[in-house]
Structure formats: C-alpha cells, structure tokens
C-alpha cells in the first residue's frame, strides 16, 4: 500500500506538473484515502489527459477505469466523470474528476488516447447519458437499444416492476 507521505508527494508532483503547463485547468485537489484526486476543468480536459499520458515525468500510461457519477443535489456539478490513471513503472495512481451540469453532458472522449476507453465510455453513455465528443460509436452497449432512459441516474427506479411476490409495505421499505 502506498503510504500517506508518498501519496502526498505524488499529489504535489502532479499538481505542479499540471499547473506549470495548464494554469487554469485544475479546479481543486484533494486526498481520498490512498488516492490523490484532481478535479479538472472540462474545457481543457482532453489536453491535460494527453499531457498526463505522454509527459515523461507524469507518464500515466494506463487507464485503469472510468465511471460516471450522479449527485442530484449538486446543482451545476450534478454529473461527473471519474478517471483513474496508473503509472505502471513507478506504480503511482491518480484519480481525475470532471463535473458538468445536466444540460451540458458533453465531454471529450479518450478513445484516441486509450482504445480501452471505448467500451467504458459507451457503458457510461448507456448508464447516464454522457455524450462523448469524438467517440467512434456511441451507442448503448449493455442495455437494449430500445431503452428510452438512462437507468443509472438516481431518479429512475431499480425494480423491474413486474414482480408480484414481494410486500414492499413491510418494515418501512
């Protein structure tokens, strides 16, 4: 496990790297357990990610995962995307976050940088309805094409609704 001082150092290092190249890109930084988290400005997102991947000092060449987030009470930052990058050589991991309002759920696609982002982005489109600019084939992947809503958003129910053997009124559920 990466110890806390190392995480702190990593956070400072990446922060300095990004600030030196893109002074306005970083909105906030924080430390969540063993992860340095960087919130990026959406307009410069793709550039920063390209930089983080290709820069010899950062060298985050491996996209571990990405996922969408939905915080219904967050106003302008209602929807967010989370990316986790991994520098395999030095074994450093960081998390990038980008937030956006519901009206403007467009974000640059990372498929050019990492082919692996292709399906993951399709999945987040399928779940939340993010529009990835530059994605080669942005269609639903897991759900049926006929589905007309984005099921992972908080306002939609989980249940199928056709179940008849359950008594929901019990025990306050």
């Amino acid at each position: 496990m990466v110890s806390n001082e190392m995480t702190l150092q990593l956070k400072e290092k990446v922060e300095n790297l990004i600030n030196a190249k893109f002074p306005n890109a970083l909105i906030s930084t924080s430390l969540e357990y063993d992860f340095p988290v960087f919130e990026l400005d959406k307009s410069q997102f793709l550039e920063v990610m390209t930089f983080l991947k290709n820069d010899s000092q950062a060298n985050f060449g491996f996209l571990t995962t990405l996922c969408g987030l939905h915080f219904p009470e967050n106003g302008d930052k209602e929807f967010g995307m989370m990316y986790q990058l991994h520098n395999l050589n030095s074994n450093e991991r960081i998390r990038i976050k980008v937030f956006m309002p519901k009206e403007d759920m467009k974000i640059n696609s990372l498929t050019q940088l990492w082919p692996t982002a292709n399906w993951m982005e399709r999945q987040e489109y399928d779940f939340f309805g993010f529009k990835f600019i530059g994605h080669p084939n942005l269609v639903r992947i897991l759900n049926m094409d006929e589905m007309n809503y984005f099921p992972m958003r908080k306002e939609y129910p989980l249940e199928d609704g056709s179940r008849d053997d359950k008594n929901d009124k019990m025990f306050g559920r």
Partner: protein
Amino acid sequence: MNKQEEFNQTSNSEKVYNIINLGPTHPATHGIFQNILKMDGEIIMEAEPTVGYIHRAFEKLAEHRPYNQVTPITDRLNYCSSPINNMGWHMTVEKLIGCEVPKRAQYMRVIIMELSRISDHVICTTIIGQDTGATTGFLYFFQMREKIYEIFEEICGARLTTNIGRIGGMERDFNETVWKKLDIFLKEFPEFLSEFQRLIERNRIFMDRTIDCGPISAEKALAYGFTGPNLRAAGVDYDVRVAMPYSSYEDFEFKIPIGQNGDTYDRFMVRIEEMWESISIIKQAIEKMPEGPIHADVPEFYLPDKEDVYSKMEALIYHFKIVMGETDVPKGEVYHSVEGGNGELGFYLVSDGGRTPFRLHFRRPCFIYYQAYPEMIVNGLLSDAILTLSSLNVIAGELDA
C-alpha cells in the same frame, strides 16, 4: 451497353462476404456473447461483438443494498472465483471504515483467494483444452475443482457463490475438516496438474493450434487495459498482488509467470504456472499461519456472537444496527483493487454516509479486455477465434455486470 453496366456494377460492388453469427447461444461462447463475423471462406475479415445479454444492473442494485448485502451480489460477478470478489469487496469497505484486519484473518483470506484463483484457472485451462477437442483433460481436472468446492463448502456452506467472510474478518475459523481437506488437496493437486500438463501441453496438435493463435502485443494489451494473466501472457509482469499488496501478500514469496507473444499458448501456460505459484502461496500461508482473532474489533460492522446478542443489550443494539444498515459509515470515496482471476478487479465506492453505497463502480477486467477481441481474431481462422475466446477467459457475468 446494358451488359457493360451490369458488369461494372458487379465488379465495383464490394466483395460479398459470408456473414456468420457466432452466438449468442453458440457452444463456444460459454456465456452469452454475440459476434457477427464477416468471413472469407474460413478467414475472419471483420468481427463485431454485441454484449449485454446478461446485463443485470449490478451497479444500480448495489446502490439499493446495504453494505453487507452487496457481498452476495459480488459473488455473481466472476462466478468462477467468487471468493476473490467477496474479499475484494470486504477489503474495500474495510479501507473505507479504516479497520485493520488481524493477520490470521488475512492469511485465511489469502488461502481462500488462492484456492479460488486455482479454481478459476482450472476452468479456463480445461476449457481451452475442451475447445481444442481434448475433453478428457477437462473431466480429470474438474475433479480437483470439486475438491476446492468441498473446502469452500466446509468453510462457508456453499460451493460456488460463496458469500464467504464478513466485513472486518472471517465469519468463523477454519475447522479441523478444512485443514484436513486442504492437506489432501495440496497433496493431490500437483499430481493432477502435472498429469494435465503431460496430457496436452507438449502435444503437437495442441501446440500447433494454440501458438500464434490470437496474439496481442504488450503495447496493444496495455492500451486495451488488459490486466491479469492475459496481460502477463503478453510479457508485462503487472500483478496487483505485488504492485499494491493487500491482505499480507507482501509476506509471501512467489513469482509472476509471464509469456512472450500473448498468444493462446502463452495464456494457457501463464495460467498453468500461476496455479503452481498459488499452490506455493497456500503452503506458505499454512506454514506461517499466526494465532489470533479472526476478525477486527469493529463492533459497528462485525456482527456480534449469537450468545451475546441473546444476553447483552449492547450486542443486541449493534446487531440490529448492523442488520438494518444504520451504522455510521464515513463519507468519502475509496478505490480498492484485488487480483481477480482475470485481472485487476477494482471497487470504486462513493459513500455519502448512508445505509447503502451512494455509487459503486466495479472495474471488471473482462469487460475491459473483451473489447480487444475483435482485433485479436481478425485475419485468423474461425477455430482460432474460438480458442482465443476461451483463452481470454471472458466470464459473461463479469462482462455484462
């Protein structure tokens, strides 16, 4: 003139390919994948996969279940090695609530996880054999999987979807039978493994079938987010157990087997070698097994003993709180990854302090690397495509969430 036009049309039109629909119920797709293959004779020119045939909305479901009820859901991710998923989930929550699990429980977890890694690789390697036509190896080797089932059953009471352990430790200590069965298993398994190896590993038919079948280079593999045995077969020795040790993996000596070309034979051999390594880890864990408690001292999360519930008021309150999910979980977000049967299995958990996870995202290795499949099979034969699929060990449950 008319003829001329007709001729021009035919000669300019695109080449007519044979279109084959591989799946969703094709026997070789084991789970449920569909691939629409454009074939020129037996050679695949283009492949278009469709997934999502068993999408079960894990992530949404996890948002509606209290923390301890998420464990049975993780069982069904990669069902060939569900204990790893269980443990990964437990460790994620433990990281979130900041509790330190005692060494004994950690070692027990290591034993269970390595057993399930073996059982996962047993499935994959035998299925490769099965898809090449050597059915018998499957049946020999599956007997060993039965033995692992027996051990799991003795530990937790179920064979496949184990729901093993709890947040904060193990539910109960290994009993005598478990130790005995483990002993027998460790004695028998190497025999069966080497017999299985002798059966097909150096058989020329098998080698011809698998070498240079569905290869992927290390760069491509990394770009496609490969992890686990499939990445290691391409020659990158990335293993979460070593890179980010969890559950005391740093205490054990083991090697990371890697391949060269990332072809089917490499993937097969890497898995075989990993089984040998797993055996050695289990042996080390049994040897080093410390005495001590089997769960952390977290009364807010670890269910109290039944006797205490019955007799002590405090325990009863905790019991109710835990079951109802009314415990205080810190706010925050945490990512924890374990080396699953197929690679880095990550849990990204966002907690808002409520009863259920606010958002739980699974990094499912199968889903991530399966998208490289079309590229891997193009320009190969149909038989290669099938072997590539089975050697990637794509588990539908993990793929489709």
